[in-house]
């Protein structure tokens, strides 16, 4: 037993394991992780790609050789701690620091064995009692989550700006000069002082398309923003379309060399938040507004606001996590900082 402890507690083994861990971290840090097999063949050639897959370098941190390395590290620290238990009195800071790292290794193992994690995809008004695990498998919960409402808040709202451009009169010069830019609002009129033009902005299409009955918006995603407008000046009453992505297509008729161009400025998102409720047997047990950095918890499960769909503003993506290792890991964190503070304070003095 003593020989075994001596073997596992040697500084040489620590340095060797550290070098191997550094190499593993470097491999995982340099080689893109979790890509499709074909991507590795494109990156490293046919033979290189096969080796990457065989050695699990495409998923270093979940490979069996990496887990074995971590176990080796944990054994090394455990043996050091057992062998050097007298350090508890002599150098308590060093002892506690090593104990902390061991605690984190144990936490990592608990995480790997018992934690569940995945994504709950909900639309407003929808309730679900299971979510999709990280590998895509359905994971049941002992209750249901109802998405009552989802909304996006902005630092500043989206803006619609129309620029009036005039062709340069000198035939030797190409291009246009900007006469004026006016911020417009759907449903309201806009006046251009420089051209004396009056535009009536009729409608905003976030994602314009031509449907069976005419112009429609495909969804709320701002993929092909367009404005319908009526130019009151000149050819009064004629409806025109302006497209932010295609400034030269279907523009307002040329008025004496003046062209109107639509610019869509998206709003900057401040926060997105879901109002969720926990249902047990159809009875509402809890309600909470969750947002990024502000999760909710119920019976060991935690719910985190993670995403939305620009094409469907009723949709909310919620991360679900049940991880019994968190307490162990946090205890390890606290012990590490106490141990390092204790050890370094003595050194600094």
């Amino acid at each position: 037993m003593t020989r075994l402890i001596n073997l596992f507690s040697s500084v040489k083994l620590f340095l060797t394991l550290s070098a191997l861990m550094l190499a593993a971290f470097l491999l995982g840090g340099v080689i893109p992780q979790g890509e499709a097999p074909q991507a590795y063949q494109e990156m490293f050639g046919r033979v290189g790609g096969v080796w990457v897959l065989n050695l699990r370098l495409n998923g270093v941190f979940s490979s069996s050789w990496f887990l074995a390395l971590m176990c080796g590290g944990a054994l090394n620290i455990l043996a050091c701690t057992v062998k050097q238990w007298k350090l508890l009195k002599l150098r308590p800071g060093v002892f506690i620091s090593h104990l902390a790292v061991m605690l984190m290794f144990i936490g990592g193992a608990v995480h790997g064995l018992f934690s569940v994690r995945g994504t709950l995809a909900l639309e407003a008004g929808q309730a679900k009692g299971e979510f999709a695990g990280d590998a895509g498998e359905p994971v049941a919960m002992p209750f249901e989550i109802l998405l009552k409402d989802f909304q996006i808040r902005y630092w500043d709202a989206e803006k619609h700006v129309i620029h009036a451009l005039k062709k340069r009169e000198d035939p030797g010069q190409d291009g246009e000069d900007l006469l004026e830019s006016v911020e417009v609002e759907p449903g309201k009129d806009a006046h251009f002082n420089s051209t004396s033009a009056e535009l009536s902005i009729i409608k905003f299409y976030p994602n314009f398309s031509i449907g069976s009955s005419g112009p429609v918006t495909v969804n709320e995603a701002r993929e092909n923003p367009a404005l319908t407008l009526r130019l009151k000046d000149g050819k009064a009453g004629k409806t025109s379309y302006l497209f932010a992505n295609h400034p030269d297509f279907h523009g307002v008729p040329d008025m004496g060399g003046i062209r109107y161009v639509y610019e869509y400025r998206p709003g900057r998102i401040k926060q997105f938040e879901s109002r969720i409720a926990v249902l047990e047997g159809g009875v509402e047990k809890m309600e909470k507004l969750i947002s990024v950095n502000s999760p909710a918890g119920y019976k060991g499960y935690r719910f985190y606001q993670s995403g939305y769909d620009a094409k469907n503003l009723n949709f909310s993506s919620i991360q679900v996590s049940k991880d019994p290792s968190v307490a162990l890991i946090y205890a390890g964190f606290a012990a590490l900082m106490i141990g390092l503070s204790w050890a370094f304070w003595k050194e600094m003095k």
Partner: protein
Amino acid sequence: MEISLKASFVFYGAAMAVTLLGFLFNKAWKFKYSVLALLAGWLSSTAHIGLRWAMAGRAPLSNQYESLIFLIWAFVAAYLLFKRFLGRSLDWLAPWTALVAVLSLGGASFLESDISPLVPALQSNWLLIHVSTVMTGYGALLLSFLGAVVFVFMGKAEPEDRRKSLESLIYRACLIGFWLLSMGIITGAVWANSAWGSYWSWDPKETWSLITWLYYAVAIHLRRTKGWKDRKFAGLMLWGFVLVMFTYFGVNYLMSGLHSYGRS
């Protein structure tokens, strides 16, 4: 606000110029005034950070520009603190500290410096705690690196007390940097757990932070168990800071991940 940063630049430049003039005219005051100019530059940087904080209504730590300004501030603060505790034996390092600060501020001027609103993931008090801890750690490790560079290229004719105080600075700055790096990784993990429900995701920034942390842990063990001191330890600090730089800059520009907003 910008004037305070320009003033910092001028003061740090003056800290170098004063030393140069002192050497040319063989004046005893050369390092004393260099330290004073460095202190004035640091105070100007403090004012800059404070003003930017007030204008933005949040801690100025949300992008590469803001974090770099904070890192330089922490680095100069680390030098001034060490000088305060180790005494006049470190005066001569002031112009070198100023040189690093001037070069870094020059580099920061190429970065996007507009104040922009925070993306949802950064709207947390952890932003201040996590980024300031990591950047202060990097500042201390930069000081250890600077000491190591000077130590490695130091002539053998240098007085023994100067070598000793520099060696002490390299090790102690490394310990402080390592402590802060540990704290930074931990606060980052706690923040990640509260924002995304996972304290560790093997995101490139996390992985490279762990590489850096493990490297410095091995360096400290090599010193304590194998007696790697002086030039050997200085060599370790030189390579260690290469890792710090890659974790700080390289990962932002070469790899995408959860920390991608750090590059803006």
